[in-house]
């Protein structure tokens, strides 16, 4: 323990140099802005800025890029709450209650609780990174393909159960998302699927292009049809309004704790990432709440839990990256590429061969989180002032950001057209109450789900019982089946009750 504290102390010596403090501040501020801009998600931001760091000292470079990574988790909340357009996938679920809070004039509160929850979860995540790296990575290593598949199924069913007006519509959205994820080259055999001899379909659909279209364009096209128009929400610009009241704090603290823990454990799993963590935290919170009927209508816990979860998960995803060299998310995969370009190899030897790098990064995460919570609480009035812009004008700017965001992913005009098509699909789904979030989750997790499923069935020689005979997978699958069957039980009960009533 003394040795660990000494290492951390040395890390703070590195992170607290004026140069590294400046890079941490640049990173978290840029992350905040990148996260808030719809369509310019963390992966895009880190990818775009990675080439700029090649001439830099690797420690300063990783401090800045990591700042962008967790800063964007905070920033993504801003657009989710203020314009119902998630800056990235991990903040999709925040739109459910965050935007409703904004419509009720509680935008500052939503952003405030998100910042506080994110700070608590982010700091907890970094403490855990410091303390538990070796122990927890051992547990994550016990996850094989069946456990991954079961976990993803749980994410799908949880989402279907919480979004839209019916489970069947939610599941349909997820299945369509999964289907879209199969377009392109087959992940295992390399055979083209659903490409219809079109070269541009070989790479499949980018989830960011789909998300920008579905959430950005789709939402706005729907919003423009609102006969009452979207009211310009009058939000007090004083930063004090962003602080939760005692009642709100009492309601949120449990959500923050649960979200933090869920986020941390899900974030540890390579590939699972903060998106699944935020969806699971929301689902668990709704189940644990004494007033689940308020979810989706502006419940503060519906913001606190997923925001805590995605920040905790983003910190936790650094553990497999640093200790095993396995990226836990898309962004950490890009960071892994950066490590290699700087001549560093993440893994167990990183902490012994480059302690100033590894511990400097961890120490900078404590400092970055502190910078972010201060930045968020005091910058909330600035961001909330966006709401004063009339909806028609806001909508125009969202379209401009969406077009630029879609184009910048691959400098490809086809992506802009696909994004627009997804926008039309999102509009139709919104009008018919199908879950756009379900489609995006299916698209994002589709490749991992398919790989896990096929690897599992290959391992078991086609025997589906592999998903039930292994303890972790078995428990997860039982929860999945219970979630799917629960509405049927409720339906049967109601029919029985109505028959008894009639009789």
């Amino acid at each position: 323990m003394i040795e660990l504290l000494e290492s951390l102390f040395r890390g703070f010596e590195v992170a607290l140099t004026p140069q590294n403090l400046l890079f941490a501040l640049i990173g978290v501020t840029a992350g905040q802005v990148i996260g808030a801009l719809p369509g310019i998600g963390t992966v895009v931001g880190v990818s775009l800025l990675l080439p700029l760091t090649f001439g830099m000292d690797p420690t300063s470079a990783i401090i800045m890029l990591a700042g962008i990574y967790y800063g964007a988790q905070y920033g993504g909340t801003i657009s989710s709450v203020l314009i119902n357009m998630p800056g990235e996938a991990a903040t999709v679920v925040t739109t459910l209650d965050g935007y409703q809070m904004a419509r009720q004039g509680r935008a500052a509160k939503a952003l405030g609780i998100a910042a506080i929850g994110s700070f608590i979860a982010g700091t907890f995540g970094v403490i855990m990174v410091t303390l538990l790296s070796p122990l927890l990575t051992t547990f994550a290593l016990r996850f094989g393909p069946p456990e991954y598949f079961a976990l993803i199924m749980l994410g799908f069913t949880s989402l279907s159960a919480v979004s839209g007006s019916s489970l069947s519509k939610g599941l349909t959205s997820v299945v369509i998302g999964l289907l879209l994820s199969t377009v392109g080259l087959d992940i295992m055999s390399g055979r083209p699927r659903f490409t219809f001899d079109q070269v541009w379909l070989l790479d499949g659909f980018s989830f960011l292009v789909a998300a920008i279209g579905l959430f950005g364009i789709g939402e706005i096209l729907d919003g423009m049809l609102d006969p009452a128009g979207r009211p310009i929400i009058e939000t007090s610009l004083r930063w004090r309004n962003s602080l939760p009241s005692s009642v709100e704090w009492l309601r949120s603290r449990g959500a923050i704790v649960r979200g933090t823990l869920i986020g941390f454990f899900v974030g540890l799993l390579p590939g699972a990432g903060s998106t699944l963590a935020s969806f699971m935290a929301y689902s668990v919170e709704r189940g644990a709440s004494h007033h689940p009927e308020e979810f989706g209508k502006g419940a503060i816990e519906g913001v606190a839990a997923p925001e805590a979860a995605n920040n905790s998960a983003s910190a936790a995803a650094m553990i497999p990256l640093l200790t095993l060299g396995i990226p836990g998310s898309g962004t950490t995969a890009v960071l892994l590429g950066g490590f290699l370009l700087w001549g560093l190899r993440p893994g167990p030897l990183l902490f012994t061969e480059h302690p100033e790098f590894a511990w400097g990064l961890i120490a900078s995460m404590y400092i970055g989180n502190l910078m972010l919570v201060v930045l968020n609480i005091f910058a909330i009035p600035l961001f909330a002032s966006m709401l004063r812009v009339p909806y028609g004008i806001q909508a125009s700017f969202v379209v401009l950001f969406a077009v630029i965001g879609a184009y910048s992913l691959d400098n490809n005009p086809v992506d802009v057209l696909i994004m627009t098509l997804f926008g039309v699909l999102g509009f139709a789904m919104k009008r018919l109450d199908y879950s756009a979030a379900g489609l995006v989750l299916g698209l994002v997790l589709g490749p991992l789900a398919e790989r896990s499923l096929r690897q599992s069935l290959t391992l078991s020689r086609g025997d589906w019982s592999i998903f039930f005979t292994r303890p972790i997978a078995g428990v997860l699958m039982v929860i999945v089946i219970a979630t799917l069957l629960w509405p049927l039980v409720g339906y049967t009960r109601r029919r029985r009750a109505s028959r008894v009533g009639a009789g």
Partner: protein
Amino acid sequence: MRKADTAAALIVAALGVFTMYQARRLPYSAEYGPGAGFLPLWLGIALLLLSVVLVRNARSGAAPETPDPVIGDEASVAVAQPSPLGREIWRPWLIFFGSTVALAFLFEPLGLWLSTAAFTFVNIRWVGDRAWPATILFTILTPIALYVGFVRLLLVPLPLGPFGS
């Protein structure tokens, strides 16, 4: 809404059948396990089964598998309580939609400056309903702000069209 829901369910059914047909042309199994057509086939079957439930729900006018009130978004509320949409709603919507589609097609050929200026001009004037001075100001400042923010600061390589260097 019932008609729209039924139509949507039929589209889902058609998608399911199409997926199954396409998946049958891919190998269901490979040497060591499931093949490229395995998941698509099951997804097609799932879509077909879900479409049956969706049609049933649409015809019965209720969603029996939903014990709780609507979760999520205001659209469902808007759908649940439809109100007639007048010309004053449709006109700006059509202008907005048309200009969005035009921007998607013309962003690369016209470049950032021209395409975003034209889009901003149309939307600020006829969708945002601003006066001419504000419209002109937005039309000039928006492309400049986008250029400085994305091209100069974030170094995003965007097409600049005839005015690009």
